[in-house]
């Protein structure tokens, strides 16, 4: 079984639109939305949820006022200043380390596990899909990413499907690290701008750090062809497989507004054709490696 994870470093380079198009093109696959913090793939895939599950994340401290003697030890031990002068815990600041719980001489601090979001197994017109929603202002996005990827793998095994296509989060931190470990390859989707290039370099370093093979495609390449060329040269020197370019095309936005993939919207559009080429290159890469 192969897993392709699509990442970008910078947000808004077109990851989700391109994955949606792959969903139209690829066969025998599970879709997995690992951008749990701001998931968008469901807006195109229109999943019918079969199974809804709670995501239980970390714990948070809660001080029982009736047992608290206000000795101040918790206040002193907390490295996040999460406990105020009235001995109330600020949930947004609490790291869930439990140090205050352990040391409270009155055993006045409870440590309930938190419901940090939901994850789903769904049916779509493209096949099965695993996706999630991290609660607003919640932590542990990395754990939720790991969980949806594990569930996607189980689902693929159960249904005899040999490919998982995963929509990764932006950035290079905890959720991105969780999204690429053990993947067959990552596809970096970037754009020909100074920020697209800067962020692509960092996420390419991250893939190299975790020894995940990387491919790259420049989206909206015609906005700045010099920059496109220079990005592709950089990628080649780093051993990243450079795939076809995708032109700037309003068909991508128009298809999104209609909740369609660009292949469904207009398979003859310039972007649909370019993405088709990129997908063929990826399929070949995944088969050969």
């Amino acid at each position, binding site marked *: 079984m192969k897993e392709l994870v699509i990442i970008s470093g910078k*947000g808004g380079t077109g990851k989700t639109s391109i994955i949606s198009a792959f969903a139209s093109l690829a066969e025998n696959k599970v879709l997995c939305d690992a951008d749990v*913090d701001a998931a968008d793939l469901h807006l195109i895939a229109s999943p019918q949820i079969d199974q809804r599950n709670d995501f239980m994340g970390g714990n948070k401290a809660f001080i029982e006022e009736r047992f608290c003697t206000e000795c101040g030890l918790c206040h002193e031990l907390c490295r996040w200043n999460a406990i105020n002068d009235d001995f109330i815990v600020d949930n947004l600041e609490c790291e869930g380390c439990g140090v205050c719980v352990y040391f409270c001489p009155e055993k006045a601090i409870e440590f309930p596990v938190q419901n940090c979001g939901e994850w789903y197994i769904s049916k779509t017109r493209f096949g099965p899909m695993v996706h999630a929603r991290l609660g607003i202002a919640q932590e542990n996005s990395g754990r939720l990413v790991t969980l949806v990827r594990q569930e996607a793998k189980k689902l693929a095994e159960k249904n005899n499907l040999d490919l998982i296509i995963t929509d990764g989060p932006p950035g290079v931190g905890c959720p991105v690290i969780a999204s690429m470990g053990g993947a067959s390859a990552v596809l970096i989707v970037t754009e020909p701008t100074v920020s697209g290039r800067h962020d692509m370099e960092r996420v390419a370093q991250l893939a190299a750090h975790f020894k995940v093979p990387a491919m790259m495609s420049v989206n909206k390449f015609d906005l700045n062809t010099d920059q496109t060329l220079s990005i592709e040269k950089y990628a080649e020197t780093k051993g990243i497989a450079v795939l076809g370019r995708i032109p700037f095309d309003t068909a991508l936005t128009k298809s999104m507004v209609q909740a369609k993939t660009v292949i469904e919207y207009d398979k003859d559009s310039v972007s649909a054709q370019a993405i088709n080429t990129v997908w063929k290159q990826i399929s070949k890469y995944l088969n050969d490696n």
Partner: protein
Amino acid sequence: MIISVASGKGGTGKTTIATNLAVSVGKDVQILDCDVEEPNAHLFLNPSIIETEKVMAPIPEVDETKCTYCGKCADICRFRAIIVLGETILTFAEMCHSCGGCMKVCPEGAISETGRELGIVERGNRNGVGFVHGRLRVGEAMSPPLIRKVRSFTNPELLTIIDAPPGTSCPVITSMKNSDFVLLVTEPTPFGLNDLMLAVEAVRILKMPHGLVINRSDIGDGQVKEYAAKKNIPVLMEIPFSRKIAEAYSRGQLIVDAMPEWRDKFLGLYHRIKELAN
């Protein structure tokens, strides 16, 4: 006054708005780029960097000559960053959240703290605009402690503009906490709207006044505006899609440098924010 520029969805134009706003105000202003995973503001500001500082997170170091392998450290650690197996004690630096629990609980005083590099903070300025950003070390998972370090350079004498990371989870909350105003940047597409709705929920949890900038305002559909009207969120600025702006951006040029007529619009935006924040 602290203005945070946030979005939910990535790539909607946060950095564009934050940098152009800062440069248009021009003096008594600082920009803090809190998107430490992928900081971009410096690419548009080209600040001279005056100071670079490594930021470390405290992690445990065990003196095995004192350790009796009692296992109390492993019991208190919620993050599996320290384990004891028979007469072996192991620490996993990258798992550690720096709570200090193991050090505190060790009856032998065998644990002290050393550091794990989170990244760097760089400070400088461009033509009177103060500049601070953090750069997370590639491979490091935890961004909030580095973001807190960037935020610690907030100067209350100045207008502080915070360029926040995308999303709605802990790094975003850490970046925009205690702001006087949150400027949400979106684009009028289904993805833009979906992620805007999440960002609005986050801002409402933090109870901060907020307004909207609609970037590439003539692509997509009218749903973002309908939503803003329904939720009483003021639309403070609209930037139509323009190939000229997109190309200037691709080269790392500010809108106000490529098209100076935009400076007054950004100043107008600042004055609207000031009225709304009070």
